[in-house]
């Protein structure tokens, strides 16, 4: 063990002699009541509103998918007509001629 290691060991030995300040280890007044109340408030079953919100989100998602499926052909044709319109666009043709 070199000199530095020895002096660090002496420092640690001196630190071990420090008595911890006498401090009360019991729970402060009202602490356990507060913690128990918070724990059960957070850890409880989901509230009726939360359960209803989840169901509503699922139903809304299903309706959105169904709406897209039912109107798929209309959406597809709208995209195709957009593309056709773009090719008929005289300005686009001029730009294409320029390049």
């Amino acid at each position, binding site marked *: 063990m070199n000199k*530095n*290691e*020895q*002096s*660090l060991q*002496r*420092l*640690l*030995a*001196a*630190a*071990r*002699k*420090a*008595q*911890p300040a006498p*401090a009360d*280890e*019991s*729970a*402060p007044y009202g*602490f*356990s*009541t*507060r*913690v*128990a*109340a*918070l*724990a*059960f408030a*957070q*850890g*409880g079953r989901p509230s009726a509103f939360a359960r209803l919100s989840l169901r509503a989100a699922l139903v809304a998602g299903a309706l959105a998918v169904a709406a897209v499926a039912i109107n798929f052909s209309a959406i597809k044709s709208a995209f195709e007509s957009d593309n056709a319109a773009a090719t008929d666009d005289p300005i686009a043709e001029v730009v294409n001629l320029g390049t």
Partner: protein
Amino acid sequence: MPDDQSFDLAGCLGRVRRRDQTAARELVEHLHPLVIRIVRAHLPRRVAEEDLAQEVFMKMFTRIDQYQGAVPFTHWVSRIAVTTCIDHLRAQKRRPELRWADLSEGEADVLDSVITNERDVAPDEAASAKELVNKLMDQLKPEDRIVIQYLDLEQRSIAEISQLTGWNPTLVKVRAFRARRKLQRFYRELIEKERV
């Protein structure tokens, strides 16, 4: 450790799982000394011990259904407490390098004493020695700090540290070896720096 013989821990846990708030209060009061000792030993700067203890208990209640009884309940709670302290120590910035100028008069005197070894550190200087060691440990990573605290300051065994932290004994030994080497380096850097 709390006195498990006079306290019906198993019964209390059963009642807590059935959401009995009185049992939850009793459990907090029973475990508070254990938790607060861990929190005080590893309290980060600028964090109130009561807030940290509350966080430990909240985690305990959130995970209480996961407790299978593989380890004593007090060890399980200790691990939650140690992990919570590590998370908070990680969040605080590590102290940059320590210089003589950062030391109080008492800490500088203690350092002089241990370097020259001309006299023993007086008992009334022990608090300064502890403060100086804390400042050195503030430069370590949280896990290294905790292992030095338990092993070199509280002189706990590897098995005890393993129980308290949930780290296996080999990991504790490896961490202790690395942590001591780093502490040694920080100490050497401090004493080799020019004294202002």
